[in-house]
């Protein structure tokens, strides 16, 4: 079931197209990562989704409701963590959570423990004394109020320490298991790669590519590089690797260098299992490599060879 459907969506600010003819759909229970350089239009797209901005043209369906973000009943199903989340400085964390729980029409008592869930043990401290990371954790607690079916996070790990990032990733995985649909926009691509099912790359207001990480990797043709240091250099291993699917393999002294597509890596590693090795190093392309490849291509060509 499609939870979010976006059809030919555009948003103009005068002559500037912040979002340009975006079409996208996100399934229920899917974790979708929205990535792109600064000013790509990610935040504008998210703001239209949650009803903070109106599109110039195009349609959005949220849980089957057209322009659902504008309607109170649909917004009840959405949890949103904005970029640079801010709160009322003179309220404490507990008061903040109580205020938003009441706005959502859910009992505060049920969610009182949410502050601990997100690792915030400063419930009675005024928000103005909070660090950026603490504000971010409070933002997560507020977004999770009312057990929303859709969660929209704009730069959710900004300000979190590595432990907080790990906890956040674990939380996303748990939410996914519960069938929650998550839209995640982030600059920190390594974190996105860890948790998402599919990724949409935005540039200049357009979605220039979307798919799973593996699909994107295959499309851009980035290769894995395996460097194995052999105990006994043997030329026949090169032949074995080429037969196993390596695109390139050569021996440089005792070091065997192999280039292969990500899909063939398992076969090649299986082939290396019978070879006595001193050392093994595997370099897989990251989402960052994929992203940069797409963006560079866009800059160089103006168009793209990819769908």
């Amino acid at each position, binding site marked *: 079931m499609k939870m979010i459907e976006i059809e030919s969506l555009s948003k103009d600010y005068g002559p500037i197209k912040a979002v340009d003819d975006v079409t996208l759909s996100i399934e229920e229970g899917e974790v979708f990562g929205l990535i792109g350089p600064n000013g790509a239009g990610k935040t504008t797209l998210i703001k239209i989704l949650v009803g*903070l901005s109106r599109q110039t043209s195009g349609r959005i369906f949220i849980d089957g409701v057209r322009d659902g973000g504008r309607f109170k009943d649909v917004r009840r199903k959405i949890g949103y963590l904005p970029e640079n989340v801010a709160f009322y400085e003179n309220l404490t964390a507990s008061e903040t959570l109580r*205020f938003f729980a009441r706005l959502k029409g859910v009992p505060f008592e049920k969610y009182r423990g949410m502050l601990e869930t997100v690792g915030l043990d400063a419930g009675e401290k005024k928000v103005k004394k909070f660090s950026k990371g603490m504000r971010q954790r409070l933002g997560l607690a507020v977004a999770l109020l009312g057990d929303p079916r859709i969660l929209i996070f704009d730069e959710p790990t900004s300000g979190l320490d590595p432990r907080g990032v790990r906890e956040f990733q674990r939380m996303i995985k748990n939410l996914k298991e519960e069938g929650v649909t998550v839209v995640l926009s982030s600059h920190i691509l390594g974190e996105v790669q860890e948790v998402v099912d599919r990724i949409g790359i935005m540039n200049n207001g357009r979605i220039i590519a979307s798919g799973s990480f593996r699909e994107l990797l295959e499309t851009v043709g980035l290769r894995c590089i395996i460097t194995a240091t052999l105990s006994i250099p043997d030329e026949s291993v090169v032949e074995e690797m080429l037969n196993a699917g390596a695109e390139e393999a050569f021996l440089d002294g005792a070091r065997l260098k192999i280039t292969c597509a990500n899909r063939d890596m398992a076969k090649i590693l299986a082939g290396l299992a019978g070879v006595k090795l001193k050392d093994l190093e595997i370099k897989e392309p990251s989402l960052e490599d994929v992203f940069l490849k797409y963006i560079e291509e866009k800059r160089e060509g103006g168009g793209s060879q990819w769908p």
Partner: protein
Amino acid sequence: MAIRILLRVAEKEFLNARRDTRIIAISIIFTLLALGIAYFGSAPTGMLGVRGFDVTVASLVSLSIFIVPLVALLLGYDAIVGEDEMGTLGLLLSFPVTRAEVLMGKFIGLSTILFLSTAMGYGLAGIVIALAAGIEELGSYLVFIATSVLLGMVFLSLALFLSAISGQKSRAVFGAISIWIFFVIIYDLILLGLMIFTKGALGTKVFSLLLMLNPTDAFRLLNLLGLEVMRTSLGLATLIPEAYSSMVFALALAVWVIAPLLGAIVVFRKRDY
């Protein structure tokens, strides 16, 4: 419009502003000024000391015209644009609330603060007057407190409109100062100039209508018309037609509360955040 949401937003607004030291400072200043006026109000007549409610009201009207609009504008100018700049508005509007509910909730919350500041300031002065000079003309004083709150609500409504249309807090500040200067200082000068220029050709009806276009004048007349001593000594009876009772000026103030508020809701609903 859900009353539950209105009350929640109002409560938050009240709670957040109540802890704002600027608001507390203003309330204290308000109290001190009110007590000062109650005591020194009749100094021009060569007398010092607390006088009756009627004389005090006449003095406090001028204080209200200067202070209450200023406090109201200060309370409301950043209600929308300030939240937008601070980053809290986006989160608030992503919740199941309508923009009209948010705006009305803010208005109710800020009006409550205004009411408490005014009631505290003038209420304390009222107790001192009652103890010193008795409770004669107490009704006029209570009307004066109520209309002071109403005057504050007018400027709160204007401040919210200003806050909804301003893209930046600095512009809202400039707008708030301009509104205050225009209505409190410039408008009456213009009216005076107009009367001199037209050599009094403006009829009393037109003149009264022009007065109602300025909420501070409507407030002043609403209070002074109720005091017989002022009505005769200031010649108001000859300037203001009989048909223009206190109720007419109260109605003018009510329109001044509603119109900018409706304008603010219309603008707020259309804006992107």
